[in-house]
């Protein structure tokens, strides 16, 4: 790299919150409700419990190799070739199914819900352009923009929660645990694979936080807050809409906002939800993309990652258009293959690094 960029622990917390809530805010509630019915919020809590364990694993890996990015850890543990090759596979799969797919979510949402007559490519290209600009400007700029947008994100979220809270009907989540604990596992895994496991890419960023100890805390705190936001939104969607309606609509939290009418005065605040989501998802795509670019630059031993950003941005747009032929394919793929892929990338891969580093007694001198 040309110059070392550093961010503060506070910025890291904010990035983690925005990254982990990114695509989840809009997609998770209907996902959970379709699988767990009225117990969606319990499944979300179960998922959060396991998610904390996963973040703990990431941090345990980071403690053994302070001030090293994920790709440097992989190369130190598994050797230059095997580590590099595995990292490349992980990152290519994340470029396709992470950033490319999430960019499709943005376009699909805008086309189906807000501007039906605009071609989807227009949204994808516009969004990819700001992602590319952000990544080219570097980590510090991204962190500062996260810091600027974060108060708006929280403000809108709190406003949304307050307004929706008037509509809660507790009988919608009864009977609790009607079918026992077994139906709770698939939605819990789905939540983990969307909210917690992708945070593995943030291990490419935590090494740039000025205090390593605070960085680990920030990753944990950020994921915890993100998980809590998702749990509350899931609970509210099922309590207000009822499990059936929440499961049937594709964007339950957006529908939730459309339902709101306070005294026939405060109505149609769904744009608030869209704004929350577009802020968070920007950081989702950007940090997937940033991790891919950094990994590639490190493996190719480049001094500067910036020349790779624009060509990869072009590939990103193409991927977002060809990834999902239709929405049915998308739902099937996201339900069946995505959790398996993310378990491999976000759980088995760091676990392998951890165990091998333990066996080879490899750790950097402090």
């Amino acid at each position: 790299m040309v110059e070392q960029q550093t961010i503060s622990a506070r910025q890291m917390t904010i990035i983690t919150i925005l990254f982990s809530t990114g695509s989840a805010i809009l997609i998770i509630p209907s996902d959970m409700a379709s699988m767990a019915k009225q117990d969606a919020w319990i499944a979300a809590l179960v998922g959060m419990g396991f998610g904390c364990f996963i973040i703990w694993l990431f941090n345990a890996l980071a403690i053994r190799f302070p001030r090293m990015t994920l790709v440097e850890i992989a190369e130190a543990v598994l050797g230059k070739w095997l580590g590099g090759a595995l990292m490349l596979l992980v990152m290519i799969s994340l470029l396709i199914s992470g950033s490319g797919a999430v960019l499709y979510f943005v376009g699909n949402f805008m086309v189906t819900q807000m501007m039906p007559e605009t071609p989807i490519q227009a949204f994808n290209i516009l969004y990819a352009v700001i992602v590319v600009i952000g990544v080219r400007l570097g980590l510090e700029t991204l962190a500062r923009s996260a810091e600027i947008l974060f108060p708006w994100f929280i403000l809108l979220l709190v406003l949304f929660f307050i307004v929706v809270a008037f509509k809660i009907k507790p009988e919608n989540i009864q009977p609790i645990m009607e079918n026992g604990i077994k139906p709770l596992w698939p939605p819990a895994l789905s939540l983990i694979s969307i909210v917690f496991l992708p945070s593995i890419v943030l291990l490419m960023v935590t090494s740039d936080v000025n205090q390593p100890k605070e960085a680990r805390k920030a990753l944990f705190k950020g994921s915890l807050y993100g998980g809590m936001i998702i749990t509350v939104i899931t609970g509210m969607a099922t309590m207000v809409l009822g499990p059936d309606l929440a499961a049937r609509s594709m964007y339950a939290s957006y529908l939730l906002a459309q339902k709101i009418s306070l005294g026939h005065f405060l109505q149609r605040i769904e744009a608030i939800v869209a704004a929350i989501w577009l802020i968070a998802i920007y950081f989702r795509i950007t940090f997937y993309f940033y991790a891919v670019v950094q990994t590639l630059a490190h493996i190719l031993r480049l001094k500067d990652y910036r020349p790779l950003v624009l060509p990869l941005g072009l590939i990103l747009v193409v991927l977002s258009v060809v990834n999902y032929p239709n929405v049915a394919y998308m739902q099937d793929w996201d339900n069946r293959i995505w959790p398996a892929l993310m378990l491999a990338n976000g759980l088995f891969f760091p676990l392998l690094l951890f165990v091998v580093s333990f066996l080879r007694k490899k750790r950097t001198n402090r």
Partner: protein
Amino acid sequence: MLRIAGILAVAGFIVALEIPGLMKKKQKRELWAFSILLMLGVGFGMISILLNNVPSPLSGITFVFKPLSDILSGIGLIK
């Protein structure tokens, strides 16, 4: 035709933006990596326009992870 011209125009814009800086700093590795990636990007773009039914890149991932997905649904972790 218009869309192909669009992709070529974008590629030309990217080249005009990046190449001068890379040439001036004489960064050979960066230049190679940049050119190969740009070629890939333009190639993928062309394929996505010229073919009617582009195979989804996700199907490659499906091929690799189908067995794990089947195991997970076998033990009741995927519905």
